[in-house]
């Protein structure tokens, strides 16, 4: 616990903001956190380290979604990384691609992680960690399959409930 407020983070600059904005500088800081999490995943041999990376991705896109601007910001983060955004942007996939840049990830892996995160965005209790949520439901592959059954395209998604 902090005992005395003698240390200040000391803002290096300050200007009045009449509106709450999400600037490119703020986006870049989030991108730095994402690339750091990706680097940590790459250097780790721990089995659960993928959940730490996916949690950083999830937390970012989750608040973008709550703010109603996930797709636009996903396009922005791709552009900030020098990646041409696709016509239709899926925010979780876009953020994973931006975090891993310049590493080119396997499309199936991006798709699987993205489905897991979309499933969690829909069904996860905010108080529960992403890792716990996914493990309780059988792991990444099982969650991706659950997404396909419950929320994905195709007739089964419309009628089948698990």
């Amino acid at each position, binding site marked *: 616990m902090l005992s005395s407020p003698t240390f200040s983070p000391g*803002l290096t600059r300050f200007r009045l903001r009449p509106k709450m904005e999400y600037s490119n500088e703020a986006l870049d800081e*989030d991108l730095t956190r994402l690339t750091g999490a990706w680097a940590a995943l790459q250097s780790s041999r721990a089995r659960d380290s993928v959940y730490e990376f996916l949690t950083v991705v999830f937390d970012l896109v989750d608040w973008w979604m709550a703010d109603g601007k996930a797709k636009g910001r996903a396009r922005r983060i791709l552009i900030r990384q020098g990646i041409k955004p696709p016509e239709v942007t899926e925010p979780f996939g876009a953020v994973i691609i931006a975090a891993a840049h310049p590493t080119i990830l396997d499309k199936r892996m991006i798709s699987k992680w993205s489905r897991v995160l979309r499933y969690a965005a829909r069904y996860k209790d905010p108080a529960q960690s992403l890792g716990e949520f996914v493990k309780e439901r059988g792991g990444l592959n099982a969650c991706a399959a659950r997404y396909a059954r419950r929320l994905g395209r195709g007739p089964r998604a419309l009628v089948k409930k698990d």
Partner: protein
Amino acid sequence: MKFHLDKTLALWADVEVQMAKIHSPNVRRKILLQSVLCEFEEQGLAMRYRRANGTLGWKATPKFSQHLSDAELDATDDLQHADF
């Protein structure tokens, strides 16, 4: 709009708001606070998150928490080795 800040961030944001108030005494506290939060966010000290009720909140980033933790350890160390 009401801002929800975690305990650590609330403390340091309040320090900065008070500093800003000295230079801009006629500006409303809400504007000062949102300006401070945006600056913190741009410096990687604060991040937004979705709260359990679906609204947005603000919390200290892991980087800021680590920064504070290091500063506290340094201060404790200095105190222990101080020559009074």
